[in-house]
């Protein structure tokens, strides 16, 4: 009786692992397949039946994509936009996040609610009116203007995430520093900042990915200075398969690395934000 129970427990545990692995495959398999397509020779992409391994392994398709017209420039634009977005949203948003986490003041809840409620709006759609305004202001088709739009997109996230990161540093620690001779600013620099740094880094990485991936605003707000997703999207229906596959893989690759770093902070980033 007892042994059959143990046996059943092993079986059910095994089934749980099987399910976990199936779910992992559901995520990984498509990535693997696009990887195969991106790292085969160009001709292999047209081969049928489609090989499931890169045979032979080749960077030819990838090189072809990266050397295509406009790709190098658009990658540069993408990185520039993402870096500006990351810096701006952190510079503007982190102080607000800190204020919400640390100070009790009139209007705090109102502000927090306003920021939370921006998520009930399709922010990306705002790029249409912004495009019109940017044209009027002579700021259209510029990576800087797009970075401003992306910052608007990222800012509510940054504020909520940094406030949850700062809130996870106990207030006592800052107060202890102040009783030991620190000013408010010194206490922040010497205590809160070092403790919040890993979380803040994860938040900024997330902002980078957000901007790197964004396509609607990018395609509306730029014409000649396309970011990578905007470029790929606009040439999608006239581009050969190898170009699309290599482009697809190139665009998703950063996520594989970023998630490795952000992983530990995912729930910091999202857990308290849901409140």
């Amino acid at each position, binding site marked *: 009786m007892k042994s059959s129970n143990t046996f059943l427990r092993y079986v059910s545990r095994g089934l*749980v*692992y099987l*399910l*976990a692995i199936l779910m992992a495959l*559901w*995520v990984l398999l498509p*990535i693997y*397949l696009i990887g195969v397509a991106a790292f085969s020779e160009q001709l292999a992409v047209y081969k*049928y*039946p*489609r090989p499931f391994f890169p045979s032979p392994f080749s960077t030819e398709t990838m090189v072809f994509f990266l050397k295509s017209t406009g790709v190098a420039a658009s990658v540069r634009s993408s990185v520039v936009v993402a870096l500006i977005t990351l810096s701006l949203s952190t510079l503007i*948003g982190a*102080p*607000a996040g*800190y*204020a919400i986490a*640390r*100070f009790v*003041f009139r*209007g705090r809840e109102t*502000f927090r609610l306003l*920021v939370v409620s*921006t*998520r*009930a*709006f*399709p*922010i990306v*759609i*705002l790029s*249409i*009116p*912004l*495009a019109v305004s940017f044209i009027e202001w002579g700021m259209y088709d510029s990576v800087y203007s797009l970075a401003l739009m992306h*910052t*608007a997109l990222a*800012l509510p996230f940054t504020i909520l995430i940094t406030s949850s990161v700062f809130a996870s540093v106990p207030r006592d620690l800052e107060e202890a520093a102040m009783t030991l001779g620190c000013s*408010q600013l010194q206490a922040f620099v010497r205590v809160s900042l070092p403790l919040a740094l890993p979380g803040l880094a994860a938040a900024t990485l997330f902002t980078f990915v957000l901007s790197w*991936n964004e*396509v*609607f605003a990018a395609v*509306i707000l730029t014409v000649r200075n396309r970011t990578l*997703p905007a470029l*790929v*999207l606009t040439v*999608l*229906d006239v581009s050969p398969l190898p170009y699309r596959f290599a482009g*697809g893989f190139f*665009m*998703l690759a950063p*996520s*594989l690395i*970023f*998630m490795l770093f952000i*992983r530990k902070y*995912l*729930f910091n*980033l*999202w857990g308290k934000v*849901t409140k």
Partner: protein
Amino acid sequence: MSTRRLQALTPYALLLPSVIFLLVFFAYPMVEAFTLAFRAEGGGWTLDNFQTMIRDVAFAPAFRTTLLLILIIIPVQFALALTMALLIQAKLKFSGLFLYIYAIPLGISELAAGIVWFAIFTERGYLNTVLTALGILDKPFIFLSYQNTGWLLFAVVLAEAWRATSIVMVILVAGLQSIPNEFLEAADVFGATLWDKVWRVILPLLRPSLQVALILRTILAFQVFAVALAVAGRGITLLAAEAYRWYNTYRDPNVAAAFAALIMVLSIVSTILYLWGLRTPEEQTL
């Protein structure tokens, strides 16, 4: 006295940049979207842009497909995400690795996801290769054809479910972590099966997280367009894609703004519906 005054002002000083930024790049364009949508070509107010929008041949299918997509994708996503979240919480070995894998799509763009699934569904793609190898098909089937709206929709659903489940999973795991283990142990003591626990303890307690995830997912789903473009080309169209087309191809920002305004209203209405439909009764909070 002055240090006190200064201290009281500090939080406002910290908020100021954010407030200014959000006013200029959020509040202003939001108002502007509606202004544009109701603005006539020569100036003055009009409903023409909305009439143009509704009369457009693509409007009805775009509207229908957008709603249909949301209705299909969201239940699929939530079932997948809840499964993943429960697996993460099941204290498996390598759960860190599983979490990483399940979270990867969080950083993948719509466009890239669309291309990935295009590679699978295309005529000489992986799906046809498998199906012919298994003898189910004798020659490749053209899934992504304009005539096969059903298959186009199916491929887009898969791509979206694949890409956007992660965010729901993360929110649900965060929610699960806030459910004290004692509740589940108490359920165990009273003889609840896993199924009972999910339906009678976990889901009701997860209501706030579900609400947030639903709102977020629905709003994002209203903005989807690149997946559809990458997978189905012009085969199916969505509201956001029409907004893009009216702006980029027809060079008519006013009608594009009408689409934007419509999407915004739909988003807000759905948020209100979720808030109202999934509210946690006051007496059930501890």
